[in-house]
């Protein structure tokens, strides 16, 4: 199956060993989109490399960018000012909603429901408009800078976010009406691709996939970054770790993200948006690992500095790459039709898997 197949979300190639239509073994062949991001990093300055991380998970560029900026800030031992942190939180949560919407649309499409895709894109469009107004780009935003933000929030940002959040509440209900109680949807997702909590941890799976397996772990709560420690939100968890649970968890996550956005716009602190960092960044020698909760799971940056303007080594822990490893475990014993459901439910972006 693949690399050119309509439902592998990019250029994933999956070798399946079948017994009739039943899968008894699988192997993912990846790397079709490898661009050597980590090598590029070694030949760029810290700031120059920031836009490259947007090209990894291109449907959640803001989150990747936040992780990188915070990792370098940690390496520099500086902190972004509170105003910048709150704006970062708002944009990252919007990005989470956008990413989950894209997932929902394509996942539903894989399972054969045509319509949710367009509903999801309608809302995602609103989010992308906010991004565009904020920084001029829709997908590969490069929204944040090391040390803070480059752009001050535009005048109506809060209003736009608020309006979006208001509309979004009923829109989620709309998606749920189409899918949650739908017999066919339940039939296609319940009991499909079960991943137990023990397996999930062993495979290093993170994000909604881990939470659907019943592990209540979210870096936003466990090791708060940006401004997450100021807001109240719940971590939804599943029980069985099947595709249906992952669906429910992501739906609930969108609701929670919406709540975080609403809390954040209520009180955006004033003040500078850029921390005290110089034009030339020369982090003291040493190394740092910093991870944030991206929409797809833990995105970690391991950066080694040798004291020059260029990073000595940047390693990225891409959630999609690690989560995809669990695919084999999830797919065994299922039918071919479930393979696409399971690929969809892991929510991979090949740009991030291959880097």
């Amino acid at each position, binding site marked *: 199956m693949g690399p050119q197949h309509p439902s592998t979300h990019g250029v994933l190639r999956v070798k399946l060993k079948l017994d009739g239509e039943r899968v008894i073994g699988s192997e993912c062949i*990846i*790397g079709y989109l*490898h661009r*050597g991001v*980590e*090598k590029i990093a*070694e030949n760029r300055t810290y700031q120059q490399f920031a836009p490259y991380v947007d090209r990894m998970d291109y449907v959640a560029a803001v989150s990747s960018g936040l992780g990188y900026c915070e990792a370098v800030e*940690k*390496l*520099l*031992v*500086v*902190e972004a000012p509170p105003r910048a942190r709150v704006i970062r939180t708002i944009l990252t949560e919007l990005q989470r909603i956008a990413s989950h919407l894209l997932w929902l649309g394509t996942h539903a499409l894989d399972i054969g429901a045509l319509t949710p895709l367009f509903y999801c894109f309608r809302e995602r469009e609103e989010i992308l408009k906010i991004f565009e107004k904020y920084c001029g780009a829709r997908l590969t935003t490069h929204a944040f800078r090391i040390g803070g933000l480059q752009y001050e929030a535009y005048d109506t940002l809060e209003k736009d976010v608020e309006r979006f959040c208001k509309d979004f509440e009923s829109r989620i209900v709309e998606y749920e009406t189409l899918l949650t109680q739908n017999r066919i949807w339940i039939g296609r997702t319940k009991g499909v691709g079960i991943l*137990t*909590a*023990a397996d999930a*941890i*062993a*495979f*290093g*799976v993170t994000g909604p996939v881990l939470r659907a397996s*019943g*592990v*209540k*772990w979210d870096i936003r*709560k*466990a*090791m*708060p970054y940006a401004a997450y*420690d100021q807001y109240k939100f719940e*971590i939804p*968890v599943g029980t069985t770790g099947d595709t249906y649970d992952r669906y429910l968890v992501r739906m609930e996550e969108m609701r929670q993200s919406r709540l975080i956005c609403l809390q954040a716009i209520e009180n955006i602190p004033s003040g500078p948006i850029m*921390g*005290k*960092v*110089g*034009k*030339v*960044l*020369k982090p*003291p*020698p*040493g*190394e*740092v*690992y910093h*991870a944030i909760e991206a929409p797809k799971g*833990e995105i*970690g940056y*391991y950066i*080694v500095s040798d004291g020059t303007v260029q990073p*000595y*080594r940047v*390693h990225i*822990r891409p959630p999609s790459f*690690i989560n*995809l*490893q669990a695919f084999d475990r999830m797919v065994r014993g299922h039918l071919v039709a479930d393979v696409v459901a399971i690929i969809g439910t892991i929510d991979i972006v090949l740009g991030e898997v*291959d*880097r």
Partner: protein
Amino acid sequence: MADESKEPKPVHVPTGDKPASSTPPVSTPSGKPADASAPAAPPKPPAPAAPKPPVVLQTPLDNEFVTRFRAKFGAALLEAMEDRKQAILIVERARLVEIALHLRDDEKFDMLSDLTAVDWPKRDRRFEVVLNVYSFAKNERLRLKVLAADAEEVPSVVGVWPTANWQEREVFDMFGIVFSGHPDLKRILLPDEWQGYPLRKDYDILQQDTAWVRENLGIESGQ
């Protein structure tokens, strides 16, 4: 393992909470002046870039956990340090699997977040294989490092954390470090016929290209 899924207590500093209590005189000064002086150093006085050395970011780590660890493994622990409040242990390569099992089962570092490598060509053992492990129960991260020279094999931890499978393959792909005991060690991101290991510092980006030109066109590429 599901019973460890209880919500971790919000700890602000990932790994620093223990060392902060056990070695306050070291970690507190290293944190505070770093905040104040590190940003001041690069931008304001560009000429005297020298006053940076006083900022101590790497400190030796010596807390309860390290003591326990040292008691158990003794000489296998080559160095315990802390960098920007993140704990790092450099351990003996040969005993990696044993240590990994201990960390997973006894110290509850049940998830391997990340496995990668760094190449330091000038050192006599050029490769550092870096494992980032995480404990749900303690909400702590720990970095484990082993050193390896060019032809030395590193024991594979796939048996301990299955997630290491692809990550070790990636390290093999990019650095050419061989993991002994890995079930299926082959290139993962790069094509199978790729020459060389791109993330080594001495990898020449043109090497593949010139080789291809020489082979297929019979001329020197001249790049």
